[in-house]
């Protein structure tokens, strides 16, 4: 059972945090074992099988009731879209996107589906000071909007740039990201909608441990045509989504600088100051809120005045 936390209790805890911070000195970070759920599920993605049909994107939108995009999913021009020089990213309207790459020696394009990797030791979870994230025994990393204060630390912590903020709801903060279809499918042992939709079986659902065995076997049985590495087996401390590729992962836009240890370890020292953050932030947010509303008020006043002048 998850503890029910309300935003109010967080603020109260802030006070507790002040006291605790005074009493406890930040502890020095030490390496730790990744707590693994033995039966947790995952998805093995074989990049060499993906044909860029975007059936997974379409299935995700339908499953998660996301808004319909401007262009139909049959439209291939999205692969040329660049925002700030970057390829398409997941955002509050799409929890998964497929991007195209042109590796020099391949002779045909390569496609890669992007979504939350559902880390074993999620940086979003460990960076969140109100515990808005949970790693379920089934493997999903899910988010609880009821306790989120909208600080967006998770967006910065995630090594894969996955959580995005829904700006349309400033006062009920909401982080949007792939949830492994947890509430509608995973919980009942069913594969996520994208996996079911994929015509190429480029996405394979199963127990993470077994997917690693299948991945190894596929690498072995295909006479050196695959890169001898399963991306996500160790990256960021291991992820539930795993990847196989026939071209170097870097050529498909994978970040090869992601450390093999959990991101948590590298931010341990930062986490040492979290109790202090707890004490400051409520005040900080109250301040932001005041500033914002005062500005609005000032603008409203100004508008009222000018309307009066005009009349």
């Amino acid at each position: 059972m998850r503890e029910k936390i309300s935003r109010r209790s967080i603020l109260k805890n802030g006070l507790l945090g002040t006291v605790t911070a005074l009493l406890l000195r930040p502890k020095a970070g030490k390496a730790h074992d990744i707590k693994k759920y033995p039966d947790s599920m995952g998805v093995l993605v074989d990049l060499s099988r993906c044909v860029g049909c975007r059936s997974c994107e379409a299935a995700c939108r339908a499953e998660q009731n996301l808004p319909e995009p401007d262009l139909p999913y049959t439209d291939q021009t999205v692969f040329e879209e660049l925002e700030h020089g970057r390829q398409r990213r997941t955002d509050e309207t799409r929890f998964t996107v497929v991007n195209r790459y042109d590796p020099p020696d391949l002779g045909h394009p390569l496609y890669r589906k992007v979504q939350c990797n559902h880390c074993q030791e999620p940086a979003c979870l460990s960076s969140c000071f109100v515990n808005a994230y949970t790693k379920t025994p089934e493997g999903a990393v899910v988010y609880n909007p009821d306790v989120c204060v909208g600080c967006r630390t998770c967006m910065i912590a995630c090594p894969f740039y996955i959580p995005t903020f829904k700006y349309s709801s400033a006062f009920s903060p909401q982080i949007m990201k792939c949830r492994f279809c947890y509430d509608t499918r995973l919980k009942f042992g069913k594969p996520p909608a994208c996996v079911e939709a994929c015509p190429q079986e480029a996405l394979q659902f199963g127990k993470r441990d077994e997917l690693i065995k299948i991945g190894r076997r596929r690498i072995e049985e295909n006479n050196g045509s695959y890169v001898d590495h399963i991306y996500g087996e160790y990256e960021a401390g291991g992820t539930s989504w795993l990847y196989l590729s026939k071209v170097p992962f870097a050529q498909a836009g994978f970040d090869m600088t992601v450390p093999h240890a959990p991101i948590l370890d590298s931010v341990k020292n930062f986490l040492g100051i979290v109790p202090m953050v707890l004490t400051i932030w409520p005040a900080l947010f109250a301040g932001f809120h005041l500033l914002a509303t005062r500005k609005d008020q000032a603008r409203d006043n100004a508008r009222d005045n000018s309307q009066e002048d005009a009349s």
Partner: protein
Amino acid sequence: MRKLSPTAMLCGSILMVILCSFTGRPLAMEKDEAPASVTIDYLQELYTAVDFDHQMHADNYACNTCHHHTTGDGPANDTCAKCHGDSGPAGDVSCSSCHDRQQAASASPAGHRHSDVYHIDKPALKGALHLQCHGCHQVEDGPTGCQDCHAFTPKGRKIFGVHNNVND
């Protein structure tokens, strides 16, 4: 799949059983006995059925290009050949006789059929058909667009957000 009348199917099976009892194994199908066309209609949710021109493919490619070791001249793939080098033709050579309609949630060898112990990486039917067809079409310059082979159903158009005919 190919539509046969029940009588024809019964006669076929009886004939097969008689022949098998003589030879001890199913007989290899001759190329000209193969169906001219196969209707692939097991999964029609977002797309309509596919009328597969089996004749054209059989005329241009060896049986084992697609049927692995179940018919024709034995396995073309080294990995299959390890066990199926001379296991002979199979009684049922349809894709669906080996490739399950449902993708297994977990490909655990334990508790599965004997054949699955070795075929742990065997794709389900939808994956098998697409990997086989699309893979070859890429190399052989066959059609590779989704709607080159199957048209959308109304539900498919809805899911893919296609509201006009421009992207058909």
